[in-house]
């Protein structure tokens, strides 16, 4: 233990001080200490809560989940308990257990985002992640992350009523990542997080022994699900997205998308991330985030790094 203490794995995301760069991604870790069954949640940098809306949402109909070879499609539709239940029931648990956290919020209109931000401010929430990019709800957040003008308006209005760390979460479903990221920075974002899930569809065509028939009958059974793709298959998209925006913004970037081992984490640092989030891989290895923290400590010790900043600097891919 004593030689661990010398290592400085901390990272600052604007005003938010994290003891290490390992976070868990929204929607994959619950609201508070749910994963205490599998690890010490207090040991990681921070958890990001499930996306929270003004009013509780019941989400999309089933099917909501489809496992693919190297990824997962989900169509949860932002089912969540709503901000008021969160403040009443989950916030005290987070604070009592000394868990660092970031609240992920989603609205259907700028007004709703502003209202959510005000509630966060009045409860002195240290950090908010704006989900502008959820592919699973019909109205709302997805479009905010795409159009620069509305994005600017949204982020700056939220900025005006929220003084603590404001993170804008982006999707890779855009034509010009760097423009979107720059817009968020100009509007007052303290950090960018990326990427959210990628719009995707799964179809299964089952052909009966009797073959296909032009008249629709039971010869072919179609099963399909549309939703957001996550997991290791999106890692190349995520790395590229972060690499592209890193050159255009100076605020910290929190990278995610398919991280499932220590090597993955280093790759995200290499392309420009300052911290990372573990998402879908929590389902496979519920203690992965904690394991990454100890692997990071071991690695730094082995390689004689005293601070994470030095390690990240050495890893950075030169543009």
């Amino acid at each position, binding site marked *: 233990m004593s030689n661990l203490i010398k290592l400085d794995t901390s990272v600052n995301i604007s005003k938010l001080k994290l003891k290490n760069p390992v976070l868990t991604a929204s929607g994959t870790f619950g609201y508070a200490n749910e994963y205490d069954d599998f690890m010490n949640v207090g040991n990681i940098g921070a958890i990001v809560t499930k996306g929270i809306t003004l009013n509780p949402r019941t989400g999309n109909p089933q099917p909501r989940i489809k496992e693919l070879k190297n990824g997962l499609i989900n169509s*949860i539709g932002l089912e969540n308990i709503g901000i008021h239940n969160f403040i009443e029931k989950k916030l005290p648990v987070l604070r009592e257990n000394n868990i660092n956290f970031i609240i992920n919020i989603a609205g259907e209109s700028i007004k709703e985002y502003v209202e959510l931000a005000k509630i966060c401010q009045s409860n002195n929430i240290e950090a908010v992640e704006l989900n502008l990019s959820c592919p699973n709800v019909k109205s709302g957040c997805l479009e905010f992350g795409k159009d620069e003008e509305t994005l600017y308006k949204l982020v700056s209005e939220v900025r005006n009523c929220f003084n603590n760390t404001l993170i804008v979460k982006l999707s890779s479903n855009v034509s010009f990542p760097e423009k979107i990221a720059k817009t968020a920075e100009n509007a007052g974002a303290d950090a960018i997080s990326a990427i959210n899930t990628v719009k995707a569809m799964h179809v299964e065509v089952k052909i009966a022994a009797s073959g296909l028939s032009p008249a629709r009958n039971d010869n072919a059974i179609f099963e399909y699900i549309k939703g957001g793709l996550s997991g290791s298959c999106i890692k190349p998209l995520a790395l590229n997205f972060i690499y592209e925006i890193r050159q255009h913004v100076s605020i910290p970037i929190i990278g995610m998308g398919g991280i499932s081992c220590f090597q993955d984490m280093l790759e995200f640092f290499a392309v420009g991330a300052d911290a990372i989030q573990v998402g879908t891989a929590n389902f496979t290895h519920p203690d992965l985030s904690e394991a990454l923290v100890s692997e990071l400590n071991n690695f730094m010790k082995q390689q004689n790094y005293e601070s994470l900043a030095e390690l990240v600097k050495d890893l950075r891919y030169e543009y």
Partner: protein
Amino acid sequence: MQLKIQNKIKGPHIVEVLSNIKLSDDTWKLTFQNQTIAKTAKPGQFISILCEDLLLRRPFSVANVKDDTFEIIYKIKGKGTKYLSSLQSGDSADVIGPLGNGFNIENKSSLLIGCGVGIAPINFLSDIFGKTGVKHTFVECSQIALCHCERSREPNFLTKCQKIRGTIHQPLINKWIASSQAPRNDNHIIITEDGSAGLEGRLDDHLENIINEVKPEKIYTCGPNPAMKYIVQTAEKHKIPVEVALERDFACGTGVCMGCVIQIKENDTIINKRICKDGPVFKGNEVLW
């Protein structure tokens, strides 16, 4: 603080495989060594196993516990269960659990119905009832005879089943009881579609008769949804409460992703509940089938 003591109790546990036995063409029984799970699992709870080359873990009901070991009964469906069937004594597996809420055990004369591989949690429940002396009858329905328990792997099992064919509420052959560790006072009814053991036919050919004969105060069941729905509807006519153990594809299996929700009728309002965390056991009359 209390929470700190509870950290990590659900794994991941690296557990040792003690045996992996084929019970029928596509159904197997795996026995693992792990004290924590064996000591804490309740009937109806499940464990979730990491399978080679698969992103998501696979959930399986705990089918029994004995000393420091626990077992699962699984049917081969796809990659995950094929991987399980490749495990051999001495291998290890990465398991989390026990997860979810088990059956509510009451001291009421009970009818336990396991359909297909749904016998897994029902088998465990039946053992607990046997140990605690709760009066119960165990009905096991399958397409063909399943030699799933110690007692049924005895020589001449099928011949014995044939003997009770056509009779219901036949007390479990005493020898079978003797070969099981637990003191049992249950009755065991086997129904197979092809008549290869016990009563021939499907559950709906026999359920009314069984209920009239056994007069249970409570029913517990696990199996395919249509079977459970039929049991709940039949039990409703007799005003018997039913507990059902449900299934659905899980992503997290731990209550965080909201991937497994079903609609439940609670006090006349319809709400979403997570099968993995709020269940998998629910009151039959609250499920919107």
